[in-house]
């Protein structure tokens, strides 16, 4: 099961100003970890930095499966790490199937048509994400939640072993949120490592094996949910008094403003 580890990792958009600085972190194989922190903490930049987008600078090392990430070929990278941006542009004129098939690009020549293997792989992930019935619809005409599932499927069709998801649950209703975490649980049980940023612990927290709090580009705390979802840490991270409770039955977390009581 491939781990993702960062050593002395810094990244940013402008030279001389680091959005992420000196991070050491290991995402264990086959686990779901949350990435939390206030707006502007650097959660998105961290993910983009790990992926090595050329419009960011980065320092330190990113090891995937124990080897430097930049040492892998493009094709290997695509099947090693899959990334779901927060709000990717909707591909105009593409159907759901065509959008999902975009994820097969690394595995064929840049002008190739879809092979039977490609189509089979797409069908499989569309079934997994519950969007097979939307196959022929235009992605642009779907609701926000359905679209999110389509993009998730287009990432899963790369068959990545590590998933970086930037606020995968934002804008999703209860049904789609539950579907999303069910899918991620299934993937984790198959050995996929998931790193998902989120602002809400509700419906997400109980799926985390661990989480990291990021603030001002630095890791404030990292560990198991029981260790770090505490009123002390959360109040310090978000700068307001918060109370944190855990549902004794389902294990879900809820957070509320401590001033309410």
């Amino acid at each position, binding site marked *: 099961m491939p781990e993702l580890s960062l050593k002395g990792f810094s990244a940013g958009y402008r030279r001389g100003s680091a959005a992420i600085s000196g991070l050491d972190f290991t995402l264990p194989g086959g686990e779901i970890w949350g990435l939390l922190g206030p707006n502007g903490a650097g959660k998105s930049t961290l993910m*983009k930095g790990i*992926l090595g*987008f*050329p419009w960011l600078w980065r320092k330190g090392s990113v090891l995937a499966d124990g080897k430097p990430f930049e040492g892998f070929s*493009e*094709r290997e*990278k*695509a099947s090693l*790490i*899959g*990334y779901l*941006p927060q709000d*990717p*542009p*909707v*591909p*105009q*004129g*593409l*159907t759901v199937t*065509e*959008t999902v098939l*975009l*994820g097969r*690009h*690394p595995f*064929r*020549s*840049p*002008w*190739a*048509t879809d092979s039977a293997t490609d189509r089979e792989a797409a069908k499989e992930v569309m079934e997994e994400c519950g969007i097979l019935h939307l196959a022929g619809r235009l992605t*642009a005409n779907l609701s926000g939640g359905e679209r999110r599932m389509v*993009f998730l499927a*287009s*990432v899963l069709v*790369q068959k990545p072993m590590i998933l970086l998801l930037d606020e995968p649950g934002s804008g999703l209703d209860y049904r789609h949120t539950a579907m999303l975490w069910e899918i991620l649980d299934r993937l984790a049980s198959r050995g996929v490592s998931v790193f998902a940023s989120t602002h809400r612990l509700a419906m997400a927290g109980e799926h985390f094996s661990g989480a990291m709090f990021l603030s001002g580009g630095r890791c404030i705390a990292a560990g198991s949910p029981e260790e770090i979802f505490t009123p002390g840490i959360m109040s310090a991270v978000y700068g307001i008094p918060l109370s944190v409770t855990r549902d004794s039955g389902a294990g879900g977390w809820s957070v509320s403003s401590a001033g309410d009581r």
Partner: protein
Amino acid sequence: MKALRWLVLLLAAGIAVSAVTGPMGSSAPWSVVISLRLSRTALAILAGASLAVAGAVLQAVLRNVLATPYTLGVSAGAGVTAGAVILFGIGISGYWACLAGTGGALAATLLVTTLAGRGSREGSTLILAGVTINVLGASLLLLMEYLSPASRLMEIVRWMMGDLAAAGYSRVFYLLPFTVAGTAMVLLRTGTLNQMLAGEELAETRGVNTRRERAVMLTASAILAGGTVGAVGPVGFVGLVVPHVLRRITGGDCRRLVPLSALGGAVLLVWSDIVSRIVVSPGELPVGIITALIGGPYFLHLLRSGPDHY
């Protein structure tokens, strides 16, 4: 594919009708048909295909379906440099006009994408930047016209309206390498072009070097549009109407859309040329007037129907 069959049929019919259309009708001798009529049909095919492919590429790379060589001012940029060569480079080969057109198109592409900025190119900023370049280019062309000797005025004015009238095949051979090179550059990366539709970030994670690919594709569209402007003048709206209509029929997958656009552009320009020869027969209209009469209202219709219907 139904669309492919229809386009091939329409193109074949266009070539046949073009061969019997002209002041002498179907009684024209073969020499006239071959040297005057089929040569302009060949020019229309190359120019139409080039402009439509350039349009399809710009729309995908910039993720803006209003982006075309004409609306972005790329044609205007090409018009300034090619116009200068035509006016002041008396006696040099028309090939240089195509080359100068490509240079002007590249410069305008660079200028308009820089003006619009990286983040704002999905909105109307890009089109506004294009309008600015268009106005600038048009003024420079007018200035050149003003400064040009009366003896050359007619030639440059006809060229500016989009002119397919040709005696012989020289312009066809000038344009051919631009059409072939530009189209080949695009056809080899239609799957990559699809990746651009879902944004640079997802494309990067799928092994696309987005900066390089974007530069290559913008260069290809400049070669296509610039070469065409150098050969036949700034013919507008082919790059807007053709990819847009075809996207509605066959969808936005560039692996289909780009080759079909090439065919569709050829069909549109061949038939526009036939119309331009019929309406004021025995005279003829510059073909750019016909495409503008089709494309202008279509552009307005797109603007009115809003971004969701692009």
